[in-house]
């Protein structure tokens, strides 16, 4: 159904060319929003939408953008989109907007966006850029969800706010790992994910 190139554009960033664990982009927000699963999920979705949309817009404009101010043009596009999304969320999904609070605005500074706009959207057509944006956004979301899953499970004994570790365990001396709630643990977990990812992919390459 999809050509090989299209498949690579969409699915490559999910694994072999993942923006977080291979290109090491967007780490700051990965540390900030992964204490619990729910904000991580919403952040993943928000980034996916904004990367895809800004990729399409920049791709459509790519032949008219003056080279010397292209980074500024890209920034303006991203900033305008993020502002729009946060205004719309505040009007129609106030609770979600409150939960994401500052991180929503900080999507502007997510390196994945600038990276994709500069490396892909400036030289490819709108359809490929859309797929590239979706792929990279989802690749980012997957890592966020993996890290948030481990942190919320071990740090609070919960998943999506529901208690999953039974009281029985606490009665017999099990304790939540407070370390998991610290940003440092997110970095270490991202490191572990990178380690696992590399060792699996290296084996395949050999």
């Amino acid at each position, binding site marked *: 159904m999809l050509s090989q190139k299209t498949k690579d554009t969409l699915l490559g960033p999910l694994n072999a060319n993942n923006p977080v664990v291979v290109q090491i982009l967007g780490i700051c927000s990965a540390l900030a929003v992964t204490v619990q699963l729910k904000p991580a999920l919403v952040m993943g979705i928000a980034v996916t939408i904004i990367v895809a949309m800004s990729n399409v817009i920049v791709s459509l404009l790519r032949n008219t953008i003056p080279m010397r101010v292209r980074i500024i043009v890209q920034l*303006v596009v991203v900033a305008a989109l993020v502002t729009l999304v946060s205004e719309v969320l505040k009007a129609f999904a106030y609770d979600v907007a409150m939960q994401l609070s500052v991180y929503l605005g900080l999507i502007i500074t997510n390196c994945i966006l600038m990276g994709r706009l500069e490396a892909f959207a400036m030289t490819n057509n709108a359809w490929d850029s859309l797929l590239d944006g979706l792929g990279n956004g989802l690749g980012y979301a997957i890592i966020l969800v993996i890290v948030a899953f481990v942190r919320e499970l071990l740090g609070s004994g919960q998943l999506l706010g529901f208690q999953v570790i039974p009281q029985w365990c606490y009665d017999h001396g099990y304790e939540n790992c407070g370390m998991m709630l610290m940003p440092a643990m997110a970095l270490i977990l991202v490191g572990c994910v990178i380690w696992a990812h590399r060792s699996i992919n290296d084996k395949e390459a050999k």
Partner: protein
Amino acid sequence: MKLNTNSNLYTFIYSAVMVIIVAVLLAVVSQALAPKQQANILLDKQKQILGALKVDYSAGNPAEIYMVLVNDTLTYGDKEVYVANLNGETKYILPLSGKGLWGGIGGYLALDADKNTVYGVNFNHESETPGLGAKIVELPFRKQFEGKHIRNAAGEVVSVAVLKSGKHADGQEQVDAISGATITSSGVSTMLEVNLAEYEEFLKVESNEGKEEDHVESEN
């Protein structure tokens, strides 16, 4: 004819046009959505006040329930106190605002008619750490405040302290802080103390009544 996209004039005009388009777009969207956002902010405030009053609004329309329960607003300088009637009992709701670790925190403190016993409390925050400081909005932390007294035995307003378990407050009642969120917890403590001091005028009105003193003594 192909445009020279590298000329100074083109760059200048392109930037100017782009900025104007984006500015107009954002201004229009902001204007169009403003009434809806204001309504959301008001609704959120009403829900929080209902939360402080421990009213379950999940079944009905929060705005309507609010209109029925909260029927008066007292003004003291720039401070407002909401008066609610809950099953025939008067409750006072005091808006609070303070500072957490990363940003502002706020809340609503519902007091019984004696202006001493805490009936319920609700907190909100802008950007506290999820799983740590953000826990101030959760029920286990808020429930601790219920039934606490903001006055000491002499009837002076001393607020309720938020302290690490093991520590002991001198001359005031206390609740346990959230472990791992020391700064947010002490932010809540400071917020209560500072805001209650600002409500002095409201709180002192009935503080000399005998009933008040008796009530405090019977608690100790």
